[in-house]
């Protein structure tokens, strides 16, 4: 057995999510991203002496939403603490955070493993805190500071050390992102830093219950990087143990370009945060009515919604999973479904599956190509549904629906209007099709001979020719049956 096979990684994740509030956590400055440096700044977030921070109510609302969506206990009383450290991105010299009495404790999220099973990842806590400013190192011989982001609202989601592989870490982070975006409390963008993830990694012999020495890996700005960085760190620790070395507790920074993590050059002393309750901020009391109100306004949980898509719409797990990945996509899908005419079971299922297929392929492709979000997709609600109806009732062929779709996106017109204008309706007139079939057979005598001498592949050629002659509008079922009949008649007449 390979050395590494006797070991398992033990991983805990700390995720910071930037909350989508209008104003900062403790002052009225805007949280808008991309403004001129140091323009979203006031004496409070700049830490001037004598100012008094006041908590933004929505920060509490948002963290309760997250706590409820992840099965946490919401503390009836929680307090803020000062986390003291000296660094220029934090002008006050301390970060307002929560330490001893965080607002959410003891929840879990469920991840879907590749083998189809679900696994619970425990949450130690979720707490509120403020963001730091941005240091710029490369524009000046010295360091430049932009304080705009400082004081912005964050929640920190701390997992139990329940994660057992880099893949599970990826899936966990994915689920967290899905939940915060469903809740509308964070945009979930890792590349822009709205969602950040640090990983605590250690390894131990399988079967052991105690933990090995852990290291912390930071600076991973994509899902893929989180997976790769943990993979790297896990293997590095395994090699050390195999060589009889001891793992040193330290913080490492992931370098995506070099595909490696390097120890951070800092003094251990910096980790002495001397937390104490912040006297400027009074306790936050959350009573049952408040929790109930937030609970009743929670959107459907993405996992619940996916399971409902499977049972209510008879969709395969794969489809339901893709459709529920983003709340906007799932909303779009369900809005279209609601515009379908109500038909009997089998037919309705067929139409729903067609809508699902269309969303998963054409809609997602369109969004990708235009680099837009579903919320910015201009197609009026119900258009896709009416197109599917037209396809199912035989007005248009499935081949024409692709042309109709492009036309719909282009002109934004109703599909029926487009069909009328462009003459896209399917030709189901048997006489007309038979006439074209005859012409095709007449023109391609050589191919007819081939077919009659046993080359069945030529059949497809005939279908293609008929379609070409009708610009794709001939009803394919009719084309097939008429062709078959005419060809067999030709055999008989020989």
């Amino acid at each position, binding site marked *: 057995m390979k050395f590494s096979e006797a070991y398992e990684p033990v991983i805990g994740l700390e995720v910071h999510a930037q909350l989508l509030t*209008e104003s900062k956590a403790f002052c009225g400055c805007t949280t808008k991203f991309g403004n001129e440096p140091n323009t979203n700044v006031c004496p409070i977030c700049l830490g001037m002496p004598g100012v008094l921070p006041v908590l933004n109510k929505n920060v509490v609302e948002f963290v309760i939403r997250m706590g409820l969506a992840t099965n946490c206990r919401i503390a009836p009383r929680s307090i803020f603490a000062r986390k003291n450290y000296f660094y220029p991105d934090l002008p006050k010299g301390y970060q307002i955070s929560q330490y001893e009495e965080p607002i959410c404790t003891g929840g879990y999220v469920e991840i879907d493993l590749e083998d189809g099973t679900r696994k619970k990842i425990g949450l130690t806590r979720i707490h509120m805190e403020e963001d730091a400013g941005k240091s710029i190192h490369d524009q000046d011989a010295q360091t430049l*500071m932009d304080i705009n982001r400082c004081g912005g609202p964050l929640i920190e989601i701390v997992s139990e050390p329940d994660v057992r592989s880099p893949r599970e870490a990826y899936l966990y982070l994915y689920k967290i992102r899905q939940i915060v975006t469903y809740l509308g409390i964070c945009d979930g963008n890792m590349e822009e830093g709205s969602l950040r993830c640090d990983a605590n990694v250690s390894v131990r012999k399988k079967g052991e219950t105690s933990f090995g020495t852990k290291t912390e890996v930071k600076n991973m700005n994509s899902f893929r990087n989180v997976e790769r960085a943990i993979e790297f760190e896990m293997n590095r620790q395994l090699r050390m143990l195999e060589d009889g070395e001891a793992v040193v507790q330290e913080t490492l920074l992931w370098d995506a370009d070099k595909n490696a993590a390097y120890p951070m050059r800092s003094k251990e002393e910096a980790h002495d945060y001397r937390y104490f309750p912040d006297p400027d901020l009074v306790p936050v009391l959350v009573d049952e009515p408040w929790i109930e109100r937030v609970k009743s306004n929670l959107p459907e949980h993405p996992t619940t919604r996916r399971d409902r898509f499977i049972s209510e719409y008879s969709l395969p797990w794969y489809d339901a999973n893709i459709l529920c990945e983003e709340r906007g996509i799932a909303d779009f899908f369900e809005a279209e479904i609601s515009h379908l005419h109500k038909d009997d079971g089998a037919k309705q299922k067929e139409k729903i599956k067609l809508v699902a297929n269309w969303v998963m392929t054409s809609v997602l492709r369109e969004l990708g190509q235009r680099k837009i979000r579903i919320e910015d997709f201009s197609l009026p609600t119900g258009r896709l549904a009416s197109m599917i109806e037209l396809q199912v009732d035989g007005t248009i062929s499935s081949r024409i629906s692709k042309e109709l779709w492009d036309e719909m996106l282009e002109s934004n017109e109703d599909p029926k209007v487009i069909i009328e204008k462009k003459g896209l309706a399917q030709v189901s007139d048997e006489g007309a099709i038979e006439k074209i079939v005859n012409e095709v057979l007449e023109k391609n005598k050589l191919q007819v001979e081939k077919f009659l001498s046993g080359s069945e592949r030529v059949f497809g050629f005939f279908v293609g020719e008929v379609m070409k002659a009708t610009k794709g509008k001939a009803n394919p079922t009719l084309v097939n049956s008429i062709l078959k009949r005419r060809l067999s008649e030709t055999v008989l007449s020989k």
Partner: protein
Amino acid sequence: MSVTVKDVEHVAKLARLEFSETEKEVLTHELNEILGYIEKLNELDTTNVEPLSHVIELSNVVRDDVVRQSASAEEMLQNAPDRTEKFFRVPKVIGER
């Protein structure tokens, strides 16, 4: 509990402060005096007393999530010991915190 010169050096370093040896001696002495005074509290029996985090009996002091006009960048930058046109300028910081 007693404070040593080492403790003073540690706390000073965390606060990025520098002291002369004499100052360190004085501070060690003063901190010990303060702690000795506070030590008196240990005489109280607090077995059944909840830890107190705030002396004022207020809770849920919150504000609505409304943007208020920030101060002007110029006004905010004018107190800075060092600056560029738009940024605060600080000594080069390498590594992370």
